[in-house]
């Protein structure tokens, strides 16, 4: 199992942070990739709401293809945390929630130099995010995969 990449978007669709660990397929145009990802999730979220038998509709947590899984967490303030992993990594939306509560709030919101809506430059955020992701059980095989690809 592998962790491929992490995205953080705000409500307006700005990509505040993009990190990748081992993404075998290189993206030609990172901005376009981020825009597409946000667009898909935006549509999927509304779709999930429409299908929901109860109101208010539940939140999208993850989806899987036969190759990869996408995990999703959205804060009430509209921040969208996205993690791409290989299949079989279980539900990681709770992990993304922890990243929001313990990493984002501590290192970004509380940083007076951070201007809301701009991409995150905080090294502390990156390193804490990195630690959180590398601690995941499904991260273990990242190094192996790298050598194969």
């Amino acid at each position: 199992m592998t962790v491929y990449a992490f995205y953080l978007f705000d409500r307006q669709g700005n990509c505040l942070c993009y990190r990748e660990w081992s993404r075998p397929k290189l993206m030609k145009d990172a901005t376009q990739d981020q825009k597409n990802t946000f667009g898909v999730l935006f549509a999927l979220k509304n779709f999930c709401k429409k299908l929901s038998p109860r109101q208010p509709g539940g939140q999208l947590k993850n989806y899987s293809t036969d190759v990869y899984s996408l995990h999703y967490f959205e804060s009430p303030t509209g921040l969208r945390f996205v993690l791409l992993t290989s299949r079989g990594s279980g539900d990681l939306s709770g992990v993304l929630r922890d990243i929001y509560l313990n990493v984002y709030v501590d290192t970004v919101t509380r940083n007076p130099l951070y201007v809301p809506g701009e991409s995150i430059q905080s090294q502390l955020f990156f390193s804490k995010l990195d630690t959180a992701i590398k601690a995941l059980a499904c991260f273990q095989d990242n190094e192996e995969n790298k050598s194969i690809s």
Partner: protein
Amino acid sequence: MSSSRASTWNKLGDAAYAKSEKVSADLVALTYGSFVREIIKDFEEPDQVNKELEKLGYNIGIRLIEDFLAKSGISNCSSFEESAEIISRVAFKMFLGIRATVSNWNSEHNSCSIIFDENPLAEYVELPPEYTHSLFYSNLLCGVIRGALEMVQIIVECEFVKDQLRGDDTNEINIRFKEMLQEQVPWNDEE
């Protein structure tokens, strides 16, 4: 508002208050006091000072909301009434150490007041006579509420209607619900 939910929120507020780090109330009161003095020096006109304090609060509010959600564990409110109760029972307790009450709902249920007797910002403060009818000393709080709610898509207007510094019996902030923002696709692919 059912009393069981109210007491749940009270407990949430107490828990969040117990968990958070405290600073000396004197430090806050005195720092805020010198802020206000400085703004009065810069802008002179009390109306303008009120506006600046509100703006300052707004910028605090749009950040404070994340901290609030993280510490309180509250996710989504189902109505404006619930939001108002949570502000007064959880948020006021968490950040100011006091509990406020919500009342004075209008018949359309889109306007209410948050009432609190104790105001940690205004401790030791006496307004000189020329300001008692123009300056809202704690107008920062209005901005904080407006900024925080805007981040969760609720647009409100806030203003002080009673202030103990003006000789009123209590402090009262009026909140008027304006609209609920809908999420929109941020860009148009046709362009």
